[in-house]
């Protein structure tokens, strides 16, 4: 098991390295696109700051607290997109029949698909969210403890794994319906937008769905509550702050199993 995992990781890195090398050939174009994307994404953050400037707070969350949510969600989403964007363009691969090629190769399909669309320019989203996080840490006064310092990177990693799992779930749908999988955009891009604000502002049904079905609640809201020592969910059990890694593990486990079912179920489009 470990040997297979190591082999897959090595394969992933090799595939990514070759993609990076090919993108590095067009350095000017790459730098321009990365910079422009960074600039463009920054407008999203500026918009949030403008909104908070007028309203002061959203459900008791000031600009620093909202920026913390935004930063956590953005970094997690950016990492997931960077590592696994291949799943995002998977519908295209199926439509063009490219999956057949991958199936013929003597290597894991999961790993190959994951590495299929690695783009260096995606650093710009992570960079932008990192700026938000740094601003948030300046604008809020978090009472830092060693536990919290350990918790922050763990929470971000868990969030990234959850978003990656959602990408995989979306791709898995394509095994059954080649059409209309754009709905999954709602969960990926929509999910990252949603987790940029406190979950408590949304409709009850949405909160339940994003707690028990797709637990995006743990991407930013729960970690932020813990980091900021906010008591607004004091009625919830204390161990809930430890749930992000658990939720991430469950979600990625389920999506990996479903993916396997999908691969076995796959019949080529035939063209």
């Amino acid at each position, binding site marked *: 098991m470990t040997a297979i995992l190591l082999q897959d990781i090595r394969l992933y890195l090799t595939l990514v390295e070759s993609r990076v090398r090919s993108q590095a050939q*067009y350095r000017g*174009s790459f730098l*321009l*696109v990365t910079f*422009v*994307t960074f*600039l*463009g*994404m920054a*407008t*999203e953050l*500026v*918009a*949030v700051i*403008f*909104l908070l*400037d*007028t*309203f002061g707070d*959203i*459900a008791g969350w000031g600009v620093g607290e909202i920026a913390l949510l935004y930063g956590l969600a953005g970094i997690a989403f950016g990492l997931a997109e960077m590592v696994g964007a291949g799943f995002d363009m998977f519908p295209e691969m199926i439509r063009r029949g490219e999956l057949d090629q991958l199936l013929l190769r003597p290597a894991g399909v999961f790993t190959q698909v994951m590495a299929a669309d690695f783009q260096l320019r995606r650093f710009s989203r992570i960079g932008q969210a990192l700026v938000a996080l740094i601003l948030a840490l300046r604008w809020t006064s978090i009472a830092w403890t060693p536990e919290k310092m350990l918790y922050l990177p763990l929470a971000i990693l868990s969030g990234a794994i959850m978003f990656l799992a959602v990408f995989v779930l979306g791709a898995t749908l394509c095994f059954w319906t080649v*059409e*209309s*999988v*754009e*709905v999954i*955009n*709602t969960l990926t*891009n*929509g999910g990252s*937008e*949603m987790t940029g*604000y*406190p979950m408590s*502002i*949304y*409709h009850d049904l*949405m909160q339940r769905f994003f707690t028990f079905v797709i637990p995006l609640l743990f991407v930013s809201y729960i970690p932020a509550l813990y980091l900021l020592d906010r008591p607004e969910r004091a009625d919830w059990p204390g161990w809930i702050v430890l749930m992000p890694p658990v939720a991430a593990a469950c979600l990625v486990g389920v999506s990996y199993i479903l993916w396997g079912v999908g691969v076995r179920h796959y019949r080529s489009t035939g063209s």
Partner: protein
Amino acid sequence: MRLYLEIVRRAFSRQLTYRAATLAGMATNCFFGILRSYVFMAAYTGRVDARGWTLDDALTYVWVGQALIMPVFMWGWWDIALAIRSGDVVTYLSKPFDFYGYWLSQDAGRAICHTLTRGAPTLMFGLLVFDIALPSSALNALSFAASVVLAVWISFGLRFLLNISAFWLLDYRGPGILLMFATSFFSGLLVPLVFWPDWARTIAEALPFSGIIQVPADVYLGKLADGALLGALVFQLAWALALMLAGRRLISLAITRVVVQGG
């Protein structure tokens, strides 16, 4: 003229064939509309108005904005740039029609289709679920319709310029991404311009982007008195014409120095 109407008609029916994508796209527009609505509902707790806007105004704005995303084709359109890159643009340039007129007609057909299949249902969703306001009078509704037409024309003008830039720039993606983000930010889609700090609002209101979402939404909401309403429509028309002139000027420049790539 008949030729261009025929192009409009064909672009319309071509767009109409993407049924599954229409449904999925609508779901996405609605989901983002729902998220933005809840953000405003939370922001308005404990206050009746902000900068003279009530919660109802803000919610109506959100849904008018979501409904306009597809008619104004916010997320980019590269058809001409791709044709320039592949060299196919030569066939378009050598055909006996006006280059600008041809693409404008194409876009008009697409926009009409998107208004009916994406815009109207999204607005309907907002009306049913979030109980947003309808235009308060027939005059409002009519001027809103005119304002949307102008918004599409402005947006087309910007996209046309961007596409034409591919004659000079080998990689049109950089400017393309910039235009996409600039449009969603400065048009007021992300946050209505009324909620911006005064200095930024003044700048944004002078740019053509505001004519794409903020102005039509203001017209829909009836925020503009008679004189201001006329002023807003003239503002949109002025930008649409200016962008058209710039586009036509550039295309005639490009023709004199066309070096076809890959052809």
